[in-house]
């Protein structure tokens, strides 16, 4: 064979050759490869589906296309050096990952966090949560074929990113939290703009409801689609809006309050049926709740240090292990660190909510139409870099 003459393998790769079709009565099924480059898989997720007509007999997610060895990187970097990685695990709610990591290290080392820093963390993290939910809202409707809402969502998202840029210096992959506080104090400009945004965004949510939520076609595409029972959700370890859509008010901010979340008055929105519409409603309602939290935090923002002034020069946690969980936009983010007393973790485990939520897809999509499967996949709100890590 000449060197530039490449052979094209038509029989498929490892995963497609080992895919076991469930077969149908007629024995006439089609195996379709969705992704890793497909408009509705949001990144590099790949799903092998077996179709009977347009009905899905079996769906199998294939992972690993954006695996970046985050956990291994944790073992070879010092605690401080690993911090920027956290902005890149889930790029849509980067601050929650920031928080989970610094929280874990603080708990392990026993670093005190000043009250002001806790409040700043709450404000920025909730802003980031709205940002993430907005993008999900737009992208989900894009999956359902409505092109326009995402551009409306981006108008608002842009405002949040501008606000966060003032204090964090970045727009997407934030690395703002530090052990014992945050990297920079919030400014008056930040506070004013946040207040402006709060009043502005309160007028936007009713508009979203008017334009989109009540739409007959949308309701037809969401209601009774991908009904997730409580048992299944528990079996798969689903968390976040996916679990709350099924009616369980499990939110780390309420159940095991970390930081200062127990000082704020906010509700945990829950659904009833566990269908895609419930998950939609839960997320939209969460944006309103986040607004309430930010408002309260801004009102009662204490003075003081934004970072603990008596930090050790080098972060050297004692021997031991720690687990710290926070509530991300997609669910429970957990970080488990084993320290051997050196400057680097012995082992670091990241618990990504998307990983558990994704695997619901295989179960929920069985027997549905291909269009419904796209709706279900969208309603799970997956961020692939977080799943692959």
């Amino acid at each position, binding site marked *: 064979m000449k060197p530039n003459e490449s052979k*094209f393998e*038509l029989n498929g790769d490892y995963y497609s050759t080992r895919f076991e079709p469930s077969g149908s009565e007629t024995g006439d099924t*089609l195996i*379709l490869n969705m992704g890793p480059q*497909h*408009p*509705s898989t949001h990144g590099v997720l790949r799903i092998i589906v077996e*179709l009977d007509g*347009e009905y899905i007999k079996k769906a199998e997610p294939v992972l690993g296309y954006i695996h970046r060895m985050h956990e291994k990187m944790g073992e070879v970097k010092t605690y401080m050096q690993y911090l920027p990685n956290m902005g890149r695990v889930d790029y849509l709610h980067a601050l929650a990952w920031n928080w989970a990591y610094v929280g874990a290290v603080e708990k392990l080392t026993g670093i005190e966090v000043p009250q002001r820093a806790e409040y700043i963390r709450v404000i920025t993290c909730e802003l980031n949560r709205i940002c993430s939910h907005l993008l999900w809202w737009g992208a989900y*409707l*894009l*999956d*359902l*074929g*409505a*092109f*326009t809402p995402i*551009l*409306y969502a981006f*108008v608002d998202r842009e405002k949040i990113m501008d606000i966060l840029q003032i204090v964090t210096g970045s727009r997407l992959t934030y690395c703002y939290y530090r052990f014992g506080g945050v990297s920079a104090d919030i400014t008056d400009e930040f506070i004013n703009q946040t207040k402006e945004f709060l009043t502005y965004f309160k007028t936007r949510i009713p508009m979203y409801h008017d334009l989109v939520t009540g*739409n007959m*076609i*949308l309701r*037809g*595409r969401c209601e009774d689609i991908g009904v997730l029972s409580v048992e299944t959700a528990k079996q798969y370890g689903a968390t976040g809006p996916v679990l709350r859509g099924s009616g369980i008010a499990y939110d780390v901010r309420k159940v095991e309050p970390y930081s200062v979340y127990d000082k704020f008055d906010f509700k945990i929105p829950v659904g009833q049926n566990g269908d895609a519409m419930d998950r939609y409603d839960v997320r939209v309602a969460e944006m309103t709740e986040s607004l309430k939290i930010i408002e309260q935090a801004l009102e009662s923002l204490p003075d003081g240090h934004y970072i603990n002034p008596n930090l050790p020069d080098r972060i050297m946690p004692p021997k031991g292990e720690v687990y710290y969980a926070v509530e991300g936009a997609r669910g429970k983010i957990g970080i488990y660190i084993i320290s051997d007393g050196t400057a680097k973790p012995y082992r670091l485990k990241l618990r990504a909510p998307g990983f558990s939520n994704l695997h619901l897809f295989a179960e929920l999509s069985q027997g549905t*139409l*291909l*269009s*419904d499967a*796209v709706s279900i996949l969208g309603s799970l709100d997956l961020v692939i870099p977080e799943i692959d890590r």
Partner: protein
Amino acid sequence: MINFLSIPLIHIIVALVAILAFIGLNGVVLVYMERKVAGFIQRRPGPYEVGPQGLLQPVADALKLLGKQLTSPMGADKILFWSAPIISFAPVVVCFLPIPFGPSPNSTGMELNLGLLLVLAFSGINVFALCMTGWGSNNKYSLLGAARAVSQSVAYEIPLLLAVLSIAFQTGSLNLSEIVQSQQGVIHWHIFMQPLAFIIYFISATAETNRAPFDLPEAESELTAGFHTEYSGMTFGLFFLAEYAYMIVVCSVATALFLGGWDGPFFDGFWWFLFKVYALMLVLMWFRWTYPRVRFDQLLNICWKWLIPLSVLNLILTAFFIKLVH
């Protein structure tokens, strides 16, 4: 001086050339219009950089499509694959022949007693082309898209025909020029007599032209690009042009059947026709950029459970009243 246009052969040749120019020109205008309308709905400027106000954007798009390499996938059925775009585009030219653009006899390509039937028959050939792309592309997405296109077209042709038939009942003619002649004066436009038929026609026409919210054959979030997944360059361009041309056809027929054609409150003429066609096109674009896509079974439910019974009812009522009047 001999009036050349009165010789039938020359008349048809001139008409066909004029129609091709009209389709091409409209394609350019509509691409620009679609993008600007989308921009307006989505609160962004739309094309802005190429030429003043982005006016040269469609030209740049067309040049890009023309310059691209034409490729066919491995294992594709070459004959079906390459002939499908042509078969999709060619019949649309014929569809324009019987449409009366203005009051003068020269503004109709060809006077036909069965003009309406000709339009409906030739616009049905498009489905055949989609079928060919589905089979010829050797791509599963194309196959699924084509399967959707066929069942969608077959289903929606029925209410479309029934809606059109009620107008034919009322006017007693299938000649589009005569139908337009019969509705002189705004108050006599058929839309006021047959509002239900108009609504049914317009919904069915949206589905027939595969426009959102009924754009299932090319549902990009499900089937990447549906039936034209494998087409590049000008082969894709032909599908694109054909889609816009069919949109003009259905809007022209709607104008002729329901909106009085070239008749208007002041100064009858082709500008009224064009104005109405473009107003309807605007509605189609408005649909596309506002609604989510329906699901396939919902699409068929709308047709079989709502549109067909309603159009049959409409037809029976029309027949009843016509009998009563005569």
